[in-house]
């Protein structure tokens, strides 16, 4: 049957299409420069992995750069060669809720890139030999992350905060699972999730609507939708009833302290006020924790993270503890400050400053089509591609009372996970190689 492409809606300058096989396409024309950006987001991330197979999504992402039906080393047009020779900046990333593959390239080559993305969606030919050579590569990526004390603590905090939900496992996976991967198991995973009806294609740039429609139908139209329904991850994290904590000891150079609180999913109406609350607390030059911790010399730096996720995630505050300061003292001061906000609320001036800061962040994310398309990919993964745009509207209208409500609701002791990485004595010895 001939594939059909229907316009679903146009919003925020983006047209949404639905291909008859279930592929969703998002298109934005931007003729500022003769370039185009392309991003395929698969709705599969580490949250979809089964016990014993953690890291599978990420390894699969690596293997999707190996040969596919029409692109191979033997033919002299391997995927990386094909894209890079045409001048594309390209890569792929895996995260909790999604895997995305993206390119920025001269506009006249966009058809070739779309053809390649369509080919590897169902035509990847990875095998045992590919996995064997890629395994040490992935392991080195894992080892590099072990060099970073912030990543180590962040993973420990997530695995402590979540008791049941897969967000407790880092996207790169557990070492024993990574090493136990097989090509057959990864093929099974690929066949479960890599289908047009589990993906969103986005194309932004100097491409005409006619060309876009033609390219989508021509390249993706012949791919069938999945013969099975896409597996749905149904695990729900139980409500946290008491504070959690974890401690790590490592020679890191500095100690690091984190306070994390369970936070709503990106599509929840509480998400935007939570994001604003986090900015007020630790997001700017004059944030509360900056003034209370960093400007008093108790920490070298403080930062906050609230990610727009498909399922409820966390809002975290992480301090790089000063050299002669006890990490627990920093954690206590942070906790007291957050509890004070929960009790007494924020000031109107704080909300105004947070609003200005976030509006600038949003404008930054839309500066250039490559940045904008990846921002849209995160919204796609979180469950609604318009999130980044509606976010702006809500930020502009946010009231003090809305932020105070979420502060009271989420900044409770029973909702807290505290993590400390204690620095142990570090040493270096120099030698010749």
């Amino acid at each position, binding site marked *: 049957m001939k594939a059909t492409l229907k316009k679903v809606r146009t919003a925020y300058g983006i047209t949404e299409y639905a291909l008859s096989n279930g592929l969703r396409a998002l298109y934005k024309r931007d003729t*500022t420069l003769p370039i185009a950006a392309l991003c395929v987001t698969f709705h599969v991330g580490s949250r979809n992995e089964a016990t014993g197979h953690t890291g599978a999504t990420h390894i699969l992402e690596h293997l999707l750069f190996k040969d596919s039906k029409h692109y191979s080393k033997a033919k002299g047009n391997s995927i990386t060669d094909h894209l890079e020779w045409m001048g594309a900046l390209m890569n792929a990333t895996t995260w909790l809720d999604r895997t995305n593959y993206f390119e920025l390239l001269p506009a006249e080559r966009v058809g070739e890139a779309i053809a390649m993305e369509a080919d590897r969606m169902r035509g990847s030919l990875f095998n045992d030999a590919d996995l064997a050579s*890629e395994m040490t590569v992935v392991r080195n990526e894992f080892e*590099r992350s072990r060099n970073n004390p912030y990543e180590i603590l962040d993973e420990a905090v997530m695995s402590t905060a979540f008791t049941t939900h897969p967000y407790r496992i880092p996207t790169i996976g557990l070492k024993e699972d990574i090493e136990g991967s097989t090509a057959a198991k990864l093929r099974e995973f690929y066949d479960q999730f890599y289908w047009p009806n589990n993906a969103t294609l986005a194309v932004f740039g100097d491409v005409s609507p006619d060309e876009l429609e033609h390219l989508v139908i021509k390249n993706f139209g012949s791919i069938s939708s999945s013969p099975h329904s896409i597996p749905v991850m149904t695990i729900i994290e139980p409500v946290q009833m008491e504070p959690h904590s974890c401690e790590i000891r490592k020679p890191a*150079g500095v100690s690091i302290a984190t306070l994390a609180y369970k936070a709503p999913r990106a599509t929840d109406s509480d998400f935007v006020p939570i994001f604003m609350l986090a900015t007020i607390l630790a997001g700017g030059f004059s944030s509360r924790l900056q*003034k209370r911790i960093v400007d008093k010399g108790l920490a070298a730096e403080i930062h906050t993270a609230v990610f727009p996720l498909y399922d409820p995630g966390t809002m975290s505050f992480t301090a790089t503890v000063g050299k002669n300061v006890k990490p627990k003292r920093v954690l206590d001061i942070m906790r007291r400050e957050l509890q004070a906000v929960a009790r007494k609320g924020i000031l109107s001036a704080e909300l105004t400053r947070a609003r200005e800061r976030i509006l600038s962040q949003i404008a930054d994310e839309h*500066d250039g089509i490559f940045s904008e398309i990846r921002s849209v990919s995160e919204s796609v993964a979180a469950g609604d591609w318009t999130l980044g745009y509606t976010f702006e509207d809500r930020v502009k209208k946010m009231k003090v009372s809305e932020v105070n409500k979420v502060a009271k609701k989420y900044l409770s002791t029973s909702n807290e996970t505290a993590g400390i990485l204690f620095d142990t004595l570090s040493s270096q010895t*120099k030698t010749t190689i």
Partner: protein
Amino acid sequence: MSYAKRIKVLKLRTGGTALISSFPSHGMVSIVGSVAGGARLAGSDMLAQMHAAMLLEGTKKRNKTAIQIALDSMGASLSFTVERDRLSFSAHVRDAYLKNLLMLITEVLREPSFPTRELAILKERTTAELSLEGQDTRAQAGINLSHLLYDPEHPNYQTSTEDSRTQLSKISRSDLVKFHARAIDGNSLVISATGSMNGLELLRVIESSFAKLPKADIKIPSFAPAERRTTQSIAVHIEDKASIDYMLGIATGITKDYVDYPALMLGLQILGNRSGFTGRLMKTVREVEGLTYGVYAYPAGFSSADGYICVWATFAPQLYERGRTAVMREVRLIVDNGATDIEVKKHRTMYEARSRVTLANSGDLARAAHDITIEGHTPSWLDDFPQRVLTVTARQVNAALKKYLISGDLSESAAGPIPKE
């Protein structure tokens, strides 16, 4: 297409140069600017860095909190950093607040107060950051490689973490005040702004904001280009790390303007294309042998001086020796046998095509316009250089690799869990 045509170069009546580029950026303006100064003028990396960091700690008109609130009220980002010969600033702000931000930048450059209390706190914070740097495998490999290739007077020499600690401990408020008095010269200002604002209006704002910057007769210390050294090596064992950062390097003695540079740059791209997977090192050492997550070769330190060739990779301890051997093998192969005509054709086409996409946002365009001006080029360089690369031949690439990538003289630096044997 032309990026150069988007950039207007304007000599400011008040001294200095403004580069104004139009780019639709959702109401954001990206600013990158600098004045002469930096670490070599200060005679100490840490003095220059603390001077830069203290600029936002208070002025004669406002204390630190007032500056922080002003920045947050604009939703602006602003940071001051130090290069070897420049004091730089970089900012993002929505166009409605541009004027206020530029006035704040000039205020902190003109009349910082360097409060003693804030200096003490900043020193504490910097001590913690240096402790982190001391455990950073990549930073330590890079610092040590610079010591193997350059003398301390050279712009590409990086201060060791230990020396930074010593320098930091000695800095007083009066050092900052004295340095500031001789470090700000409005005539050396280069400011690049990119966004969707009205260019003429922006120029007027820049001129009025920066008019009162002091003028000084700054003499940046001269330096001799690096002389080639024979092979040396250094390994720093850092406990409890999982991956080793490994670097190979050699000083070239040439700058970006030297006739061999495009051919050398292209040759290094063929060996180890830094922004992708198509370099020989990635195709063999990663893809075929599976020895690393990333391995790259690139020209480094060419922005203000004679630069060096750097090969950088990360290895698990158990694959370290095999990795080193594989990297060295690929280096020797390309030097001895040369790159092929096909490789050169493909890589030069790729370079030219990529040059069309890499500056496609206001921040990168503002940065590029600023940097090439500091290097002494006009904006047309952004269009002309890729065209020059398109004319490079395989013969030129191979001659440049043989001349500069002398495998027997390469120095090695590694940091991380170095195996005992």
